[in-house]
């Protein structure tokens, strides 16, 4: 799973039949540079991760932070009434499983032997 910010919506008309009625969002995953830049102990030119398209049945909107699951978990997530032993029928591999209310980043920045500085930060979208 990863946490990201919803940055857009994706529409399509020509699609697999079982995807009818399913909403798709464009999500930008959080990079360590967004959450705890002090943990980057060497300069990196890449501080953005690739965007991900994920199915959403929770009703997340643009600007909200969400948790996205991949694979089998994603297929189960969009079919909440799935019975045990039945294979999920929709061909997706990423889905929103939670809309984030609040998160806290509390990295212990130093390595063993260091001063163990804590830089706690709270985020509420």
């Amino acid at each position, binding site marked *: 799973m990863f946490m990201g910010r919803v940055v857009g919506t994706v529409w399509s008309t020509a699609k697999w039949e079982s995807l009818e009625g399913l909403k798709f969002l464009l999500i930008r995953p959080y990079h360590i540079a967004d959450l705890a830049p002090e943990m980057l102990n060497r300069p990196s030119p890449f501080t953005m991760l690739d965007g991900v398209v994920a199915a959403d049945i929770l009703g997340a909107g643009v600007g909200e932070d969400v*948790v996205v*699951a991949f694979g089998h978990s*994603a297929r189960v997530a969009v079919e909440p009434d799935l019975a045990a032993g039945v294979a999920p029928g929709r061909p997706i591999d990423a889905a929103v*499983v*939670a809309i984030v209310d609040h998160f806290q980043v509390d*990295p212990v920045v130093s390595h*063993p032997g260091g001063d163990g500085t804590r830089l706690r930060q709270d985020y509420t979208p």
Partner: protein
Amino acid sequence: MMLGKVIGEVWSTRKSPHFEARKVMLVAALEQDGESLAVTGEVVVALDEIGARPGHIVTVSWGSGARAVLQPPDNRLVLVDAAISRIIDAHSQEIDGRESVVVEE
């Protein structure tokens, strides 16, 4: 499995009904950088059942491996694809034929 450092926690109320009430942690992925570990930039969200706290070096298991951490043996409907499977006490590597061991706090 992935090696990572726990950096925080996430809370949510609007979530999938399958997503059970468990601790949801933010874990920064780590890679080897010379003799130490460095962040790759990727941050993953993993469920925690073993009491990992910020600062802990952990392994994260993926897919049905993660579901097996949380609910063995019948875990097909557990909606989890990443779970913290161990807290690392020490790790070692071989440099020029010598074994170097790093013990975490």
